[in-house]
């Protein structure tokens, strides 16, 4: 059974790229979602095994999504365009990938999450 990955990214091209990379690696994509509302809807409707969260969703952040995922016990990977080392608490120790993420790093991170979860 393939891994279901929720992709949350407001930038279509990036979401497309990530989705393709993950699909190529055999994952099933949930989304992509470009807003908090949509992402929470997808989690509720179809769920996921792991999520890739863009920090900045154009005026809002993925904080609420991360909280929800923690509630349901699903790991997530953070995608950040910010160069700062500082991490808000809600990252909660998740793997942080800098944009643009190399495909290998992204896949490794997803696999790492899945391995830890199972």
């Amino acid at each position: 059974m393939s891994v279901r990955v929720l992709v949350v990214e407001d930038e279509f091209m990036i979401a497309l790229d990530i989705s393709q990379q993950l699909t190529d690696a055999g994952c099933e994509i949930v989304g992509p979602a470009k807003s908090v509302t949509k992402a929470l809807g997808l989690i509720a409707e179809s769920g996921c095994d792991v999520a890739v969260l863009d920090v900045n969703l154009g005026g809002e952040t993925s904080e609420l999504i991360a909280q929800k995922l923690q509630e349901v016990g699903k790991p997530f990977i953070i995608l950040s365009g910010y160069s700062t080392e500082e991490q808000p608490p809600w990252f909660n120790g998740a793997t942080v990938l800098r944009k643009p993420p190399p495909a290998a790093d992204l896949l490794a991170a997803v696999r790492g999450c899945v391995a830890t979860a199972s």
Partner: protein
Amino acid sequence: MVETTLKSTTLKSAPSSDPEVASIRRSAGRADHGAEPRSSAGATSVLARPAPINILIVDDEPRNLAVLEAILEGPRYRLVHAGSAEQALLALLVDEFAVLILDIRMPGVSGLELAQIIKERKKTANVPIIFLTAYYNDDKHAIEGYDAGAVDYLLKPVNPAILRSKVGMFAELHRKQRAVEEANRALLAEVLSRRHAEEQLRELNDTLEQRVADRTALLHASTQRLRAIYDGTFEFMWLLAPDGSLLEANRSALEFARCDLTSVAGRPFWDTPWFKFTPGAGDTVREAAARAAAGETQRFEMQLHGPASEARTIDISFRPLHDERGRVILIVPAGLDITSRVLAEQATNRLAAVVESSDDAILSKDLNGIIATFNQAAEQLFGYKAEEVIGKPVTVLFPVDRQHEGPELLARIRRGERIHHFETVRRCKDGTLLDISLTISPIKDAQGKIIGASKIARDITQRKLAEAKIHESERRFREMIAELPAAVFTVDGEGRLTHYNRAGLDLAGRIPLETDRWCIGWRLYNVDGSALPHEESHMAVAIKTGVSLQGAEMVIERPDGARKLVTSYPTVMRDEKERIVGGLNILFDITERKRNEERITLLLNEVDHRSKNILSVVQAIAKQTAISTPDEFLKRFSTRLQTLAASHDLLVRSRWQGVEMSDLMHAQLAHFAPLIGNRIRLDGPSFQLSASAAQTLGMIVHELATNAAKYGALSNDSGQVDVCWHAPTDVFTITWTERGGPSVVMPNRRGFGSIVVKTMAESSFDGDVDLDFTPAGLRWRATCPAANVLDKSAHWSDNTIGSTGCQR
């Protein structure tokens, strides 16, 4: 006898309390007694030239008297005649007689009766009596005569030779008897005199012991008194042998050195505790003792240190004491501790020096207002030399119209008043009038009696100038502070606000209250938001620690709730003695600056984020751009990047605040610019796209235009493209309609272009996208809530809405 009595009287009356003198007189008296022979010598001279012998002849018959006189005539006898018994008794009272020649037969008292009377009288009982008679020449009468005490009995006429012989015998007897008596008397006198002398001697011997006891007691008392003085005096006293060794030291001296006599007696004076704590003192004392031993008296002052090393100044003298032959038998050093006097003198000298060197004019006067002292500053102030005014009345310094002040001030001084800062006018030597302030204090002698006054005169014209200067500089300072754009306030040492400027009030948004301390702000907070009590604010800390601070930050809340972030520069203010008297704080409102800094940080983060996003997009575009040939890829990829760049240019130009729809269209269709307005028709109201919508729409328009140029309406010379948009309500619609191009064929492959115009559009706009490849031409239509694409800061602009109809 008389002489002895006299001598004795002289002895007794010798008026001397000195028993020695008395004894000398007494011995002298004894010597006089030894010279008593003078009286014997006197007796000898009486014998050598005998006094006449008195013979009394009693006869009532003058003829008989004449006969007897004739018989006894001569220098040996003095004949006294008596004519009657009465006369005879009278003569016997007056003189002493060697023999009485008595006539028996006399009228009245007879010779026999007279003889009995004479014999009965003690004085005359022993006078020999020779009876002489012419009538009773019988034995009976002779016996009667002998019974009556007669020694002889002669009958008339008398034989002159017998009478002379008998009288001569009795005269001789009388003379011898007198001599014996004389000698006896002298002997008796001598005996009496000796007895008297012995008595006196005994008396003297008896009292001598008592006198010696009395004298000893007296001497003892006197010694005690001397000892008391010696030990009681504050003066140090010592007794030294001529060789300088210590014999005695009095209590004051011993107490000073804290030693007892036994521990120091016999030591050389210079090697005793009095001098051993003071370097050099021993040598001085050794020399002084040597000179005193040579008879010289010396006196000098020296510093001595006691065992506790307290320095004392001693006025010390060395006196030699001589015996009667002039030899020095003792050296008497005596010292008086005059430290306090020396200190007092020093203090007085110092005080005098202070007065003399004082910058204040100081003069003193007696109670009559006569100037006694006048210091240098007074000379400078008044222009008089001290010697010119000393001894003159102080009123020489008074202007004419102020002469009355003299007596008034003197009266107050006499009452013991002190006069502080009495401001008046005085006249200099050259007539200049000076504004001065006087402080006058009574001068008292050691008994506290007021004997004069000291005056301190200060030229207050200078002070007034200085005050004016200070006021001026203070005024300038206040004006300067008032004008400062920064908020400034000052506090005193207790934190009371003493001054603040307009900028301060503006910053605080209030007028400070009387009770405010340390800061003009209403409420204070630390930068982290915690409350900051006023007494812990920067100004308070600076004053309490004495350290000025630089640019500490805090937040001031105004009564209206606004909070201002300030940096403060509290400075501690000190007086000339470096005592903290208050502080000055300058507050800079850095709220705006801080906000700008935060905005810049935010922007930097945003730029960071966006550039990374764009790079990610670029990466994605590169991956999505199908690879036909490297040249083809490069061409397509670079034009797609140019699309991004064009949209980006617009966004940057609008400061990322959104892009006007028509501007976006013109930018994305720049390659077809000559066609715009004829083959490419743009129609729609002014509409401000959000940044992301502009980016997405830019890419869509680029893909549509590229497709049109390659396959559609713009691939020939006559085709047309209509681009219409409108947002009559809250729904945004945009259409791309081609006509007049070559016949359209549905592409068999779904490439990057279709992903962009269909999937990306739907996803980005959250709307509906229709893409129809009709034979007449490609039709693209997107509909979404206006809010999804509208720049949120922009307002609707309805003036061009629906101006031109669009094909749907």
